[in-house]
């Protein structure tokens, strides 16, 4: 802070005043509807002299008698007027449909779109606000070419991960850098109110991102929150209220089919079959008992109801002249479709701007946000104990002697031995787990802009962040896990992330001889982030307890843990832009970053970039082509980095553990990592070619980008032999490439005085490839639910490869020799033997790919890829008089989903467990009377054409094979929103300035071929390495909301 003031004082000393002949000009600014326009900036061209129009649109400015005045207002077409000694100049500003004049936020500044040399896409906040979602990232789906938004699943409060242009890192995060109002964020943007976004600008190529140096390689997302506009005091109320419900159920076996399955499972164990008959009745009675029995649909029980979602925002904004402000409070309450559970988010924000004089502007933003997410995750529990799996597997009927209603109220299945595989009523499970996560974040940003000399502006920015998350998890005595571990248990975890950031920039803008436009920026930035965590747990709470609100009631406390770490970064950067006659645009940036995380031998990284653009439209030879309104070619090349690694890797760390001598805890110390003093940034070299074309006065605007990104010196958490004492080591090794094409097309299809129809189409394809790895070695890894490795990273292929077996139907009767004396089937010689089971007719037949006669893990191959390669969005907005309608669809193709739910449920060996409906058509071993089919002939006859293995025909351990990998391509009707703005004549009588009502349907329909809930799913994210896994993913819902915007 001291430094900021010092620099500030220094700059004051540079201040120089030029005495010139001046006159006073005044006038009124009006809009297309002849209404006065407050807040318009009126500036003297080529100087920093400017004023802002008052409430009635009037202004007064002192300028040189030969000056040019520029009237500009965001979203309007700027107007230039020569003063020529006139003292009164009235102007009319009309809405600007020409996106070339759009102001684009770039790193540490803004530029006009027509001046851009890099690849930058922009989205307006008004579009994002149409999705009734809690976080900004979810609303970005399909809006930006090249931006992939991957939601884990449909859980409330969930925040999706974003990848731009494929992502170059293998083991480290590919999340872009988020910058909110100039402040880089270390931990996402979840704390923002999506309704508070003015615009989002996505920096995609190195010419744009290199200014962010070591953090720019994954792209930069610049969020600008609602800007302060001068004007009269405005009080606003925005709300929506709606209902949502799951949009899909996955069919399971009905009571009758379930009983047949149970019977078939136990047919070979006469002793146990008696128990089955006691519970479910005799096979011969199944039809009469179950044919007309609805049973219990657990999915319907768990999430079959409509739940509410609502949003309210109160805002007050105003201020004319020197001081402006904006204050709002918003509340978003989004219930989860599985109760209890949901997410409540509160945001309060104060934004103040004060112009000390024409040259100095102060601004401050205070943003407080809290979000409380409750409810147990459907992803909790592994394997057969997973919560979502229990929705499918918990049996649909009580059998005989107990009504289904009574069974639905039991805490657990009375027929299943807790000793073996306990099954809990999903409702009891949901109710007996108290899970709550409360995040509170306070951001304070202050900035000063000082135009200390003509053409020179200094900007100082200081921001601080205090953020804390408290996680509570408690299993009460009813919960099966509590029962299995001797009583209720729980844990409390508090994580605090605090930090500050400050930056100083000086920019210089000038135009020489009308043709030479020069702009220079130099700056410095410093960042500090600290992280602290504390966790306590207790278990064996007595039956009567207060949960985690009195953790002392537990009788067996765990060892409390804590963690503290900090990182810092220091950077210098500069950008130089030059354009000649608005035809030839040059742009160069360089940044030097020093980071605490990196090795003493590589503390500093340097990231240069250069770009050139040719605005051919300004060439004389194109002047005659009337329909062409823009033609620009852009070329850029540069480097940026990725520094997403844990702290302290350059040091040889000793972690602590425990060795319980004499039944007491004794602290131990042991090596935790292999130190790497040479560790440095991951570097991405990116080449981008862009083409901007505009037709018919920008009624059609087309942007095409092609890029080639190569990432080297990957920060690879390399797998190493265990003989080293470690599993992995961070090295700068390996390389990847991403090549792709992006298209953005904006069109104004119809434009009459009353009717307007606009479209935006975004499409992108990306091709990812691993170019090199440590020692050229492939590596296999497992997503966390499976013990087997099921993903493969290899040189020459894309990331995200699913690795498993190919299947070839089921073993047929004639694959076996039959021995009638003991009724056994033995595989014929020459038929490959599966090491996992002694195959029987009807068992899943995997392909012996290497032809060695044995089906074992060496027969695995690549059977899918979880990353879609073609994504896009198509938005249409219509307006007619006061009505507005928008229809937005998005899609992704080329990615696969690893249906781990289905795979987990394929092993069907547990007692009294239900399964998916497709099992009805399985290979059967019984006839219609429940008698075993023994002879080869009847067995073969009964199973002609069957492709689904018999009840135990998948073996006892799930193995990934091709049928469990499904096409994840989809097209989603993301939202349709219809609004009506009440005529001013009506509302002015009740002193309102604006009233809009609307109806929105969100996630209305998904067109896909996926058998699970939603193909847009990724429940196991180990970096980008295991995408597309669907294990226990929370079902998504369809929303219908009605909303209201009022301001007075």
């Amino acid at each position, binding site marked *: 802070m001291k430094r900021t003031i010092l620099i500030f004082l220094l700059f004051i000393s540079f201040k120089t005043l030029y005495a010139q002949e001046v006159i006073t000009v005044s006038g009124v600014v009006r809009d297309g509807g002849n209404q006065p326009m407050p807040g318009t900036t009126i500036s003297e061209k080529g100087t920093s002299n400017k004023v802002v129009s008052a409430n009635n649109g009037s202004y007064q400015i002192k300028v040189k008698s030969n000056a040019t005045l520029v009237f500009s207002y965001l979203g309007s077409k700027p107007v230039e007027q020569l003063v020529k000694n006139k003292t009164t100049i009235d102007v009319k500003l009309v809405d600007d449909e020409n996106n070339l004049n759009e102001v684009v936020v770039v790193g540490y500044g803004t530029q006009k779109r027509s001046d851009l040399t890099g690849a930058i896409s922009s989205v307006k906040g008004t579009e994002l606000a149409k999705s009734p979602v809690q976080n900004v990232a979810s609303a970005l789906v399909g809006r930006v070419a090249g931006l992939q938004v991957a939601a884990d699943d449909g859980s409330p409060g969930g925040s999706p991960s974003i990848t731009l242009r494929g992502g170059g890192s293998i083991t480290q995060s590919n999340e872009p850098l988020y910058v909110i109002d100039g402040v880089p964020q270390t931990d996402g943007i979840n704390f923002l109110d999506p309704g508070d976004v003015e615009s989002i600008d996505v920096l995609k190529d190195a010419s744009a991102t290199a200014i962010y140096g070591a953090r720019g390689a994954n792209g930069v997302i610049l969020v600008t929150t609602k800007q302060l506009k001068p004007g009269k005091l405005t009080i606003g109320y925005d709300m929506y209220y709606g209902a949502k419900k799951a949009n899909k159920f996955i069919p399971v076996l009905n009571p009758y089919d379930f009983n047949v399955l149970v019977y078939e499972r136990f047919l070979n164990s006469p002793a146990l079959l008696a128990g089955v008959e006691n519970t479910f009745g005799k096979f011969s009675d199944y039809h009469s008992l179950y044919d007309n029995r609805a049973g219990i649909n657990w999915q319907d029980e768990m999430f079959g109801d409509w739940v509410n979602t609502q949003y309210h925002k109160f805002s007050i904004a105003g201020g004319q002249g020197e001081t402006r402000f904006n204050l709002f409070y918003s509340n978003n309450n989004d219930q989860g479709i599985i109760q209890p559970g949901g997410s409540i988010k509160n945001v309060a924000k104060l934004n103040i701007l004060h112009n000390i004089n024409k040259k100095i502007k102060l601004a401050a933003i205070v943003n407080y946000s809290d979000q409380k997410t409750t409810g147990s995750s459907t992803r909790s529990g592994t394997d057969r104990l997973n919560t979502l799996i229990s929705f499918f597997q918990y049996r649909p009927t009580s059998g005989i002697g107990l009504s289904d209603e009574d069974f639905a109220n039991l805490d657990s299945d009375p027929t299943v*031995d807790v000793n073996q595989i306990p099954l809990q009523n999903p409702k009891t499970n949901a109710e007996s787990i108290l899970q709550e996560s409360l995040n509170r974040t306070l951001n304070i940003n202050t900035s000063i802009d000082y135009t200390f000399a003509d053409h020179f502006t200094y900007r100082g920015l200081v921001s601080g962040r205090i953020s804390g998350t408290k996680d509570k998890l408690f299993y009460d005595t009813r919960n099966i896990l509590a029962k299995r571990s001797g009583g209720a248990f729980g844990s409390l975890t508090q994580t605090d992330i605090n930090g500050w950031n400050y930056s100083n920039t000086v920019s210089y803008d000038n135009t020489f001889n009308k043709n030479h436009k020069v702009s220079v920026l130099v700056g410095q930035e410093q960042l500090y982030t600290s992280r602290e965590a504390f966790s306590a747990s207790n278990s064996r709470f007595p039956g009567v307890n207060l949960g985690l609100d009195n953790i002392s009631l537990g009788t067996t406390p765990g060892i409390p843990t804590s963690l503290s770490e900090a990182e810092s970064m220091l950077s210098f950067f500069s950008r130089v832009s030059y354009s000649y006659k608005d035809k030839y645009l040059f742009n160069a940036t360089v940044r030097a970053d020093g980071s605490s995380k990196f090795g003493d031998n590589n503390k500093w990284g340097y990231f240069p970039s250069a770009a050139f653009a040719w605005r051919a439209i300004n060439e004389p030879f194109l002047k005659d082509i009337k329909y062409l309104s823009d033609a620009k070619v852009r070329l850029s090349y540069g480097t940026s980095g990725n520094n997403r690694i844990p702290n302290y890797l350059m040091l040889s760390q000793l972690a602590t553990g425990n060795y319980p001598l004499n039944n007491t805890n004794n602290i131990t*110390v042991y090596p935790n990592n292999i130190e790497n003093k040479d560790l440095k940034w991951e570097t991405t070299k990116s080449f981008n070619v862009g083409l901007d074309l505009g037709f018919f006065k920008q009624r059609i605007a087309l942007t095409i980008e092609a890029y080639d990104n190569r990432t080297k010196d990957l920060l690879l958490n390399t*797998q190493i032999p265990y003989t080293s004492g470690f599993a992995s080591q961070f090295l700068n090794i390996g390389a990847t490439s991403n090549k792709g094409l992006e298209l953005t097309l904006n069109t104004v299809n119809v434009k009459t005085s009353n009717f307007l129809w606009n479209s935006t189409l975004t499409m992108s394809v990306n091709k990812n490839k691993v170019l090199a790895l440590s020692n050229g070695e492939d590596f296999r890894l497992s997503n966390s639910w499976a013990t087997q490795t099921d993903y493969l990273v290899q040189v020459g292929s894309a990331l995200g490869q699913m690795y498993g077996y190919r299947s070839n139907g089921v073993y047929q009767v004639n694959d076996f020799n039959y021995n009638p004396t003991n009724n056994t089937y033995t595989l014929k010689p020459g038929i490959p033997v599966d090491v996992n089971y002694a195959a029987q007719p009807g068992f899943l037949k995997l392909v012996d790919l290497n032809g060695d006669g044995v089906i074992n*893990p060496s027969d695995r191959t690549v059977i899918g890829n979880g990353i879609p390669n073609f994504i896009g969005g198509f938005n249409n907005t219509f307006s007619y008089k006061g009505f507005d309608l928008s229809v937005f669809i998005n899609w992704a193709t080329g990615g696969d989903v690893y249906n781990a739910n289905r795979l987990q449920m394929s092993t069907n060996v547990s007692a009294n467990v239900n399964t998916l409906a497709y099992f009805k058509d399985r290979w059967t071993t019984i006839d219609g009377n429940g008698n075993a089919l023994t002879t080869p002939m009847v067995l073969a006859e009964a199973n002609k054409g069957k492709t689904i293995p018999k009840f135990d025909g998948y073996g006892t351990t799930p193995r990934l094979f091709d049928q469990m990998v499904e096409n994840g391509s989809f097209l989603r009707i993301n939202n349709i929103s219809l609004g009506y703005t009440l005529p001013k004549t009506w509302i002015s009588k009740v002193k309102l300035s604006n009233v809009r009502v609307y109806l929105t349907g969100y996630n209305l329909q998904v067109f896909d071929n996926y058998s699970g809930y939603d193909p847009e799913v990724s429940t196991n994210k180990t970096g980008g390495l295991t995408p597309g896994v669907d294990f226990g993913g929370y079902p998504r819902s369809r929303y219908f909301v009605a909303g209201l915007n009022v301001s007075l």
Partner: protein
Amino acid sequence: MKTKLKYHIASLFKCLAVVVLLSNLTACKKTLTEEPKSVFDADQFFTTADEANLATLGVYESMSNGNTLGFYSSILYENDNDIAQVRDILTTDFRGIAHYVITAEAVYMQSTWQTYYDGINRANLVIEKIPQMGIYTDGSQRKILNRYLGEAKFLRGFYYAELVRLFGGVPLKLTPTHSNDELRIPKNTTAEVYNQIIKDMTEAIDLLPDGKTADERISKMGVKGMLARVALFAGGYALQQNGQMERPANYKDFYAIAQKQTKDIMDANVYSLNPSFEQFFRNQCQLKIDPFESMFEVAFYNITGGTANSGVIGQWNAPLSAAISTYGRTNSYVKTTPLFRNMYSSGDLRKDVSVATYQINATGQFLEYAAAADNNFSPGKWRREYQALPPKDLNNTDINYVVLRYADVLLMRAEAENELNEGPNAATYDAINQVRKRAFSADIFGKQIINIKLGAQGSGFTTVPTVSITGGGGTGATATATISAVTNPTTGAVTAGAVVGIKVTNFGVNYTSAPTITITGGGGTGATATAEIVDTQIPTGLNKADFFTALKNERALELCFEGLRKYDLMRWNILGSSLRATEAALKAYRANYPYIAGTNFKDGKSELYPIPQRERDYNNKLIQNPGY
């Protein structure tokens, strides 16, 4: 215009200069220096004896988990053998490991390999750092530091001994890993690994102080005992890369090491047998270190019953128990066989401690297995009833793994003497009979004792008859009968029954021939019984081979289920043949007896586990073991 531009540029550079000046280089350097807060920086560590102690305990920690001596290495990998197996004849998951259906991808061995090498790296750090410490080089704290150094060397040797037993020749890594180390190192031979282990352990003996330890830390005598064990393995058979089971030509040199070390331990008279075999296991189950016999244990204890520092001893290898019984759940995956139970002579007190013939149901009742279900007999040494109740966790226990107890030292002595002297000598008999003597209870010990077998059951017994024992040259034997009479609880009327069992309550002393048994009184008639004489000691005058057979059986009877059997058979080069013989015997006992290890075992392959596939993926210098 030009001057103005110059001015602009000049001021620009001024600004830049100021910025750079403000963030001058020393400030930068300080800003960007890392100082870890929640972990120690190894470069700053190893200054005090306490710090060396913590790092030494870190080496111990590597064996206190399920990957190593809480589960896989101590329980799972010992199966299947000739006296025990893992239940169910499935070949998936851990059952496949036990039943010799094993692939290199199996995660079990991978975890074990990883965890032992982690421990070795921890030991390497301590072994490298302690001699560099100021308080070591100046001699001021050398004594205590030498102890830590000795412990680290012992543990490194011990971990390699575990690895070489499981995987054969493995890479020897003897320095802590640093960033530029060559991590892809080839295998050493079995002999090279054993030589290193013997070197480490021998050095440890010199470094460690005399006397017992008060906790699970290794003592000097403990290392000597472990060295004896390692020497027997080094001198025993092991599967070589050529697919042959071979032992070194100078194998007797290794037996001589075992002989010397065991003799030293016995002469030192620091350890002895617990007078009660059962009490030893009760102590173990009650989380007490046995005051007499325990020579080296791995500490297990988790305050909440969580997985860290926990094992499955007393859960995996105990009689089956229902989760909701007061005893808590046991999985009871390890099963022994009725044939092994029958190896115990009558009167051998180890029989009913070692083998449990019952399960515990949900109401806490003990239910004996029917004859047709006797394949469910389980190890009884760590039964739930011996343990502190209720269990903290359904899956995990705090019971220590006893790596070495004095009884093993006695049996190793006997084995080494027999081998080196080409037959048993007095020391051999003395050692093995110390174990036998305790097995038949010290206070009734005689050379021979009696056993009583019921003949005709008779009838008409309403009260328990008297069993009298006469003749046979001895005295003191007593026995009681049990009858099948039933008393009506309401009327008190007694329905007469037969004699259904006779239990010897005192085996007496000095019997030289079978005494006469008479059953009198109780209102009934016709019940008869005969007595027989049981040898409690190993017969004298055996030749080398016969003594070896006796020793082989004695090791099973004494040390069953303690993590040694399979490896004993392996070093004697009879693992495959024993498994096949066991399978044949069990099938003869009952045709559908579930036991498949004999069929699955492949000589020249199954003696070793495969090198974990992951390890070979990242180290192409590692050659796979034969047959995989």
